């Protein structure tokens, strides 16, 4: 790569790093608490956690009833 195109590339890298360096970061303890809270608040509505009855299970093969 020529020196001038290296410079162009590096300037872009610097620009990107400046953008990322300027971020306001939240404490991990706060972030962790929020993630936990989200999971726990939604746990009761998560069918893969709570399970479901076979009548509510859309993938369960339906029993076939016939009139005798």
């Amino acid at each position, binding site marked *: 790569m020529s*020196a001038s195109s290296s410079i162009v590339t*590096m300037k872009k890298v*610097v620009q990107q790093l400046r953008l990322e*360096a300027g971020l306001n*970061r939240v404490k991990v303890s706060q972030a*962790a608490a929020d993630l936990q809270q*989200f999971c726990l608040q939604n746990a009761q*509505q998560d069918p893969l956690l709570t399970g479901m009855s076979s009548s509510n299970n859309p993938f369960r093969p339906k029993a076939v009833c016939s009139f005798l």
Partner: protein
Amino acid sequence: MASEKAEIDALKKECDGLRTQIEAARKAVNDGSMTGASGGVASVGRVQLKLRKTLKGHLAKIYAMHWATDSKQMVSASQDGKLLVWDTHTGNKLVAVPLKSAWVMSVAFAPSGNLVASGGLDNICTVYNIKAASPKTLRELDAHTGYLSCCRFLSDSEILTASGDTTCCLWDLETGKQKVVFTNHIGDCMSLALSPDMNTFISGACDSLAKLWDVRDGTCKQTFSGHTSDINAIAFFHSGNAIITGSDDCACKMYDLRSDQEVINYQDTSLNAGVTSLALSSSGRLIFAGYDDFNCHIWDSLKGEKVGVLSGHDNRVSCTGVPEDGLGVCTGSWDSFLKLWN
């Protein structure tokens, strides 16, 4: 030229300085671990899901699947050269779309349910109208110079693509033209996921980095490192504040967007297989990760522990998905079958 060399050296110094600054800023907010904070959270116990249905119909390796927003229909793509749209409640095939190129790597369902898109080694993202009497090609999005690894619709008029040419792209489906090109990765882009509010998206690439992008202005807002190999799978946590990645380095990681760093690593010494795909349960508590070891392992996202496994495929699990209603998990495999579990 001496002046050019001096300029390059100055820029290198500035890069190094900025990288050190970023690492210091991340460290400064790293005041506790996620797993430590989850010590008080009740365990989910052993998660044992049952195989409910095996969908048979493809004749070769399945590479991708995507749920429709109605949580009933699902589209799968196989290198047998077909897309199949399934009614997962009955197990019936609703539509078969023959592909011009059999080397498909990705498939997506539009939120409306009217369109599906696919692409692969042909470098093209083809969009089909599946509501027509027989599937009709609506658009061929042809501008990437590398394979199409992933595609996701924002609506019937916009789609995002990720490519082996290291870029992602936002397309206007009305004109068939590129609206925004996202350049910053230095390796093939393998996967992308749209944020719940659709203002940002994340991409995972072979440069082992995950990047967060602004959909509208094309800027890369954040870069997440830590993986030591290709990132094959990526997903947003439903709150929109965290992302999960899966890699060839056999680990999954959670990165928090607001802390701008990795907060948990999901890894097990007994698991020596790359992660191919991942999906989250509706609360985000469970991570379903497909691996090269033919299984889909289930992780507790908060505690970082393995809590279950979906076993049954006879080859690599290549794709995993949980529908919007959260009522099950679908796994697709190189063994040509899709399985539904809950």
